């Protein structure tokens, strides 16, 4: 049994975008705040803070999840991916990010980091997604700018490009 008392700082270690990182968290520290304040990884956005909006979505051991509904101590030893981990190299965009740009799938961009993390995982397992399936999946994210049309178009386009890439 392991105990972390309320007023102590616990050293949390995990892999973030392939790099081993660590920082200090109280038991009550949310993963969103840990990423942003301890690690300075501010790509993950904080929206509603109760799991409804999806802006803080990151991948925990490959699966998209809400960082705001996760305690930092719960991911000790896990492997995480955040929006900073999407680009293949500095100055280049990933296929999904490039599709978002092409289709104007963002306006203010606040929700985008979370949506990208969900789609990045989804398109790995769903190589031929249907529009309905995509819309249902995107229901886990709230975007107040785009009306979702351009996001769906970008996701479909990205899926096609990813298929081409895999065939080549």
């Amino acid at each position, binding site marked *: *049994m392991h105990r972390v008392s*309320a007023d102590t700082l616990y050293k949390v270690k995990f892999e973030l975008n392939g790099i081993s990182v660590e920082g200090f968290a109280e*038991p009550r520290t949310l993963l969103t705040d840990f990423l942003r304040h301890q690690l300075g990884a501010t790509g993950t956005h904080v929206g509603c*803070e109760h*799991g409804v909006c*999806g802006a803080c979505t990151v991948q925990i051991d490959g699966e998209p999840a809400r960082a705001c509904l996760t305690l930092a101590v*719960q991911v000790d030893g896990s492997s995480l991916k955040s929006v900073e981990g999407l680009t293949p190299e500095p100055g280049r965009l990933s296929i999904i990010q490039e599709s978002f740009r092409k289709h104007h799938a963002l306006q203010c961009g606040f929700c985008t980091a979370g949506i990208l993390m969900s789609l990045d995982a989804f398109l790995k397992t769903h190589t031929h997604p249907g529009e309905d399936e995509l819309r249902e999946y995107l229901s*886990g994210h709230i975007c107040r700018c785009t009306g979702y049309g351009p996001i769906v178009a970008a996701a479909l386009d990205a899926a096609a490009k990813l298929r081409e890439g895999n065939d080549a």
Partner: protein
Amino acid sequence: MKPARFDYYNVETIDQVHKLIADNPDVRVIAGGQTLVPMLSMRLARPSAVVDIMRIDQLSKIDEKAGSIRVGAAVRQAALLAWPRLAEKQPLLAAALPWVGHAQTRNRGTICGSIAHADPSAELPLVLVALNGVVRAFKQTGKTSSARGRLFVGPMTTARSDDEIIEAVLFPLRENGKGYAFNEFGRRHGDFAIVSCAAVADAKEVRLTVGGVADRPASIQIQAASDAEAALILNDFAWSLQARDDLHASAEYRRQLVRQMGLRTICEARQCIA
């Protein structure tokens, strides 16, 4: 919106959980955290300690046992949804699970956690009641207890006592000669239901269970009747649920959904009797 301070325990055995709860009744169990963490953040829950049960090996299994699907307390919703042949083994569970939260919350949230939370509009408590499933708990004394049917006593309230820790939930397997159907209406897929309906039918009768209206899932048994007769029975049932107005829908609207969607769900369950 940040949680108040609490101690965090990471345990490997059920005995350790019991010991913590015996020493301090203010301990709350955390599994996937998809309902507890928002409650902590909004400070609707302010436990002095939280005990994480996700590393207790014996709680992480799904298996088929004595005519039921047994789902351990640390099994995530996504894991059950991905369980091979779920739709064949229990079609109602397979139909309702995609409506539980969103893919992103199902990856963390557990089946038993949703049941323990007992939200009157949540899908898993509805399915549990519709199938007359069983919740098994470990008691402090080392014994296990089982609750069927009477588990839910009100909104966010179960009959579970403080020293009972949910071990698993058992959903009965699909039975030959029965048909199952599920429908839900909400503002957005994955939001809490305004009204949700689950029906289990056989040649003689059908049992309709409705969530989102009363303070807990409510069932009615309807003997073989014409659609017109069933509609009359459903009207009485809709009124009996004491629907209330809230931000999302009026009581009148909810009653109408019980009549319309209830009848549709009953018909669908009858049609798929196999």
